[in-house]
């Protein structure tokens, strides 16, 4: 049995290489796409597997139900959340992770890093994997420092660095720390980034405002529950907890839990807590399944088409005493071997293509067979099961041939009308998938082009953002010296400072604004997103003024910093067009000179500017209120981002000049900066990457579809050789015969378009709904997608039809 399976398998390659190659190539491509997208899915859903406690750990999350604030839970917590929870629920176990910028000093050199201020039991809570040191004792003293393997190598050139010392500046000032432990680098798919860790101290807490102000999100708080049932039980008590703890802080007559909802997000779900992200990942996995499905359809089509050619073999084997069951086993065995080989080839394709896929998709996927052996085996099991399920029909069909009939007739059986219908139906399904994929791909690309071409409300090119000016340790004198130096750089045409910059939401802050020109209940007041700006901020960005005037030093009431300000102090502000709508003014003009109660101050609107898209394309541009703080050199740490407008300089040139000016002004603080375009790209790259991946998948799918179409066309052309001969003897021209053959192949493709269009329309609309500014979907995308699929189909069958139509009729008639 096994021997005859092996012989049949081997001979299919040596005797009919084209058929075998098409079959294997199609299957391998499908497997490769499936494996790659499964790898991606595993990566994206496998976050934080490095901690053995993953299934017990939950992150605190918060959602607001306030006009002007995006709904949906965000992972994060108020600084004092853990302490307040422990007061009401003493059994709760948790740790905090407060991420802070830090400057590492090495001799005269400085570099920027990120440091985690954590609780003493953080390492044991997460069971952080250590290379050196003791988890329980590593973070006892405020001078203790834990760093990662990579950081140890970077700063000490070795891993074994316990006991070595390092000087770090962060919100606690410049201090010397002693390394007490080194941790293994965490995998890339980790929400936690543990480069440096030190103890979170009461002094740190005292330096920050808002530690216990509800509604302010400062850090990450993680909770551990041994029994998953504890989580919903505690969550059910959280509204009451919020009401008790917030009290009247949100205003009289306001029920706090109506506005703010706390929840726990399983650590495993933190990465994909945004349903749009999760949907995108699941969609890509679906693409993988579709590619595998298309490949299996090919397999079924080619196998059933070829069944007629094997009918005589089946009949002979049966006449010689083979039962149907034995034959089915043989055909399934052959299918299993083919699929196993295709899996190996597919895996090789994945290995070869991974660098390309990683580059196109912005990923870092990889396969390590020592570690991933079980996973690979599992995927193989899936593919094999799907393949055998697909092979059942051809196996049954083949083994059902009646020997007497087959042996008696001189012609080979066609597999019947059902077989032909099935093949046509499957080709239709396959091409529907290809057309839908092309339509979606064109739709995605259209949206991406639209997002990058749309007016952002400011000039994106020729704008450099220097974040070093807000960094730890940058002094007033250094900032001032830098700004004066920058103004003298040839090619620089404008410099300004603001707490908000394109794609920088570090200093996001929301507050309610109440109109004073009409009575409103405070809880109905909209929330405005607030930023501080210095002189020339809007001019440097190139924002257009819609109404009124901009803020400057010349107008007395513009300055926000007023010593001894009281509730009656009035300061001027500029709002955005979206804020005009949010506050309910009839027009930008109408908003001018109106008074607001904002952050317990009276604020007069003196100007309205255009909305500026500093945000992700999936995020709504918030309604903004800008206050003027005329002396940015004195702003607190974290505020002043420097915006530099330049022209006639390359990106490298402007960076070199800015960096030189910074080194001169502040040698002890590392330079940090990038262009606005580069910074914004982080929001656009994921969409572009996913579209690239999808496009790759769609191409592979189209390739598989073409292989199937070609294989079937080749089979049909050879089956119809005699018919072609007869037609030609009767006077048909070559073109007429070619048209006949092509027409037969294109009929299912035409039906496929009708199936694919509504499906693609629905999916495209769903995908577009995530964007704040979706592109209009016109008929062109659908026509173009179908045209592309048909063109590819024509390429696959056209040449074949032509050569079949060119055969000499005499030879064609002798063909059996």
């Amino acid at each position, binding site marked *: *049995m096994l021997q*005859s399976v092996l*012989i*049949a398998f081997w*001979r*299919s390659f040596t*005797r009919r290489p084209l058929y075998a190659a098409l079959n294997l190539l199609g299957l391998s491509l499908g497997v490769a796409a499936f494996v790659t997208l499964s790898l991606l899915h595993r990566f994206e859903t496998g976050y934080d597997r490095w901690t053995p406690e993953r299934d017990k750990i939950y992150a605190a999350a918060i959602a607001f139900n306030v006009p002007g604030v995006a709904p949906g839970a965000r992972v994060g917590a108020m600084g004092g959340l853990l302490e307040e929870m422990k007061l009401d629920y003493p059994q709760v176990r948790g740790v905090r992770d407060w991420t802070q910028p830090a400057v590492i000093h090495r001799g005269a050199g400085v570099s920027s890093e990120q440091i985690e201020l954590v609780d003493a039991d953080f390492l044991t809570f997460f069971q952080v994997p250590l290379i050196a040191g003791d988890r329980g004792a590593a973070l006892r003293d405020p001078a203790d420092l834990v760093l990662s393997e990579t950081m140890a190598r970077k700063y000490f050139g070795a891993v074994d660095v316990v006991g070595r010392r390092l000087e770090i500046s962060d919100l606690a000032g410049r201090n010397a720390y002693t390394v007490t432990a080194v941790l293994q680098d965490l995998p890339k798919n980790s929400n936690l980034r543990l480069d440096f860790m030190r103890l979170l101290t009461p002094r740190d807490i005292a330096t920050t405002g808002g530690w216990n102000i509800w509604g302010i999100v400062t850090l990450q708080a993680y909770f551990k529950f041994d029994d998953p049932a504890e989580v919903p039980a505690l969550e059910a008590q959280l509204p009451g907890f919020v009401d008790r703890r917030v009290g009247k802080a949100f205003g009289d007559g306001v029920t706090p839990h109506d506005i703010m909802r706390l929840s726990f997000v399983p650590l495993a779900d933190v990465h994909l807590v945004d349903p749009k992200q999760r949907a995108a990942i699941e969609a890509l996995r679906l693409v993988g399944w579709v590619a595998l499905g298309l490949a299996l359809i090919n397999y079924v089509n080619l196998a059933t088409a070829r069944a007629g050619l094997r009918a*005589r*073999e089946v*009949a*002979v*084997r*049966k*006449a*010689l*005493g*083979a*039962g*149907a*069951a*034995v034959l089915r086993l043989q055909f399934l065995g052959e299918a299993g071997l083919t699929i196993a080989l295709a899996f190996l080839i597919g895996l090789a394709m994945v290995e070869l293509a991974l660098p390309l896929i990683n580059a196109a998709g912005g990923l870092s996927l990889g396969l390590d067979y020592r570690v991933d052996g079980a996973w690979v085996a599992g995927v193989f099991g899936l593919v094999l099961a799907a393949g055998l399920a697909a092979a059942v029909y051809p196996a049954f069909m083949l083994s059902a041939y*009646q*020997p*007497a009939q087959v*042996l*008696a007739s*001189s012609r080979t059986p066609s597999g019947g009308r059902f077989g032909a219908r099935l093949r046509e139906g499957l080709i239709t399904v396959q091409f529907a998938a290809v057309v839908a994929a092309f339509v979606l791909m064109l739709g995605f690309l259209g949206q991406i082009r639209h997002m990058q071409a749309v007016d952002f409300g400011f000039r994106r090119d020729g704008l450099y953002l220097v974040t070093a000016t807000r960094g730890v340790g940058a002094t007033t004198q250094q900032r001032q010296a830098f700004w004066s130096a920058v103004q003298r750089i040839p090619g620089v045409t404008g410099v300004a400072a603001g707490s908000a910059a394109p794609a920088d939401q570090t200093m996001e802050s929301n507050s309610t604004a109440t109109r004073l020109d009409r009575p409103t209940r405070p809880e109905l007041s909209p929330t405005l997103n607030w930023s501080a700006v210095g002189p020339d901020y809007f001019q440097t960005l190139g924002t257009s003024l819609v109404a009124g005037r901009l803020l400057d030093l010349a107008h007395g009431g513009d300055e926000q910093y007023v010593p001894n300000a009281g509730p009656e102090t009035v300061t001027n502000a500029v709002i955005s067009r979206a804020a005009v709508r949010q506050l309910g003014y009839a027009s930008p003009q109408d908003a001018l000179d109106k008074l607001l109660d904002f952050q317990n101050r009276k604020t007069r609107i003196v100007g309205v500017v255009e909305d500026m898209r500093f945000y992700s394309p999936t995020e709504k541009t918030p309604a903004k209120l800008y206050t003027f703080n005329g002396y940015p050199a004195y702003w607190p740490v974290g505020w002043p981002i420097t915006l530099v407008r330049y022209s006639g300089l390359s990106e490298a040139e402007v960076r070199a000049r800015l960096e030189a000016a910074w080194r001169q002004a502040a040698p002890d603080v590392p330079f940090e900066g990038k262009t606005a375009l580069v910074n914004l790209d982080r929001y656009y790259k994921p969409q572009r990457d996913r579209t690239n991946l999808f496009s790759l998948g769609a191409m592979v799918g189209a390739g598989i579809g073409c292989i199937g179409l070609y294989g079937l066309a080749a089979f049909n052309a050879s089956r119809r050789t005699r018919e072609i001969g007869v037609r030609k003897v009767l006077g048909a021209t070559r073109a007429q015969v070619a048209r006949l053959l092509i027409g037969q192949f294109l009929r299912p493709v035409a039906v496929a378009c009708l199936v694919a269009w509504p499906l693609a329309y629905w999916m495209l609309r769903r995908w577009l709904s995530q964007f704040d500014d979706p592109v209009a979907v016109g008929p062109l995308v659908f026509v173009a997608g179908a045209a592309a699929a048909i063109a590819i189909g024509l390429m696959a069958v056209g040449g074949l039809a032509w050569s079949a139509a060119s055969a000499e009729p005499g030879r064609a008639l002798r063909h059996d």
Partner: protein
Amino acid sequence: MIELQSVSRLYRSDEIETTALHGISLSIRRGEFVAVMGPSGCGKSTLLNILGAVDRPTSGQYLFGGVDLARRSEGVLAQHRARHLGFIFQSFNLVDDLTIAENIELGLIYRKGRSGSRRALVEAAMDRVGIAHRARHFPHQLSGGQQQRAAIARAIVGEPDLLLADEPTGNLDTENGAQVMDILRGLNATGATIVMVTHSPSHADQAGRRIDMLDGRLVASVAQAL
């Protein structure tokens, strides 16, 4: 060894009902060489298919060694073919993708409960028909006569009780036809039971008994002196 009692076979397609065999009764003894003759469409091949258990009678009984095969399951018939029957076809019906030796081996591999070396039996069969030197070739590399000899080797490799030959010389020239007939007579002389359908009177004359068929009925059964 074989008893057919009032065997009929009807074929039904969408609208037409054709009767291929009309109540045929026939018995064949072990060691006999029977030639079946008749014009095209007289039911010769249907008779052979029923004898070969690849087709079943619509009515009547088919006793093989005292066992009624007319109402047995597909699986039982498959094993019956593997154990007791050998087939030779007009168009040889060798499997294209298998070598000559592998094709001959097919005559053994579906037989249950058989063990021991198949290779020796295959080689012996090839020697008997004189194609041992072609063992590793594929069917299309052989002449028609060689292909038919290979097919005979496949039919006899399992030493079947009954050898069924459907126009075994129909696709061959005179010389190759004569060679095939020599082989069949030789097999009969060493004890094989053979039923052969043929159009050739001279080949039919070489059988021990000749049966003539017309329109699905037996019209004559004549013992012949060899």
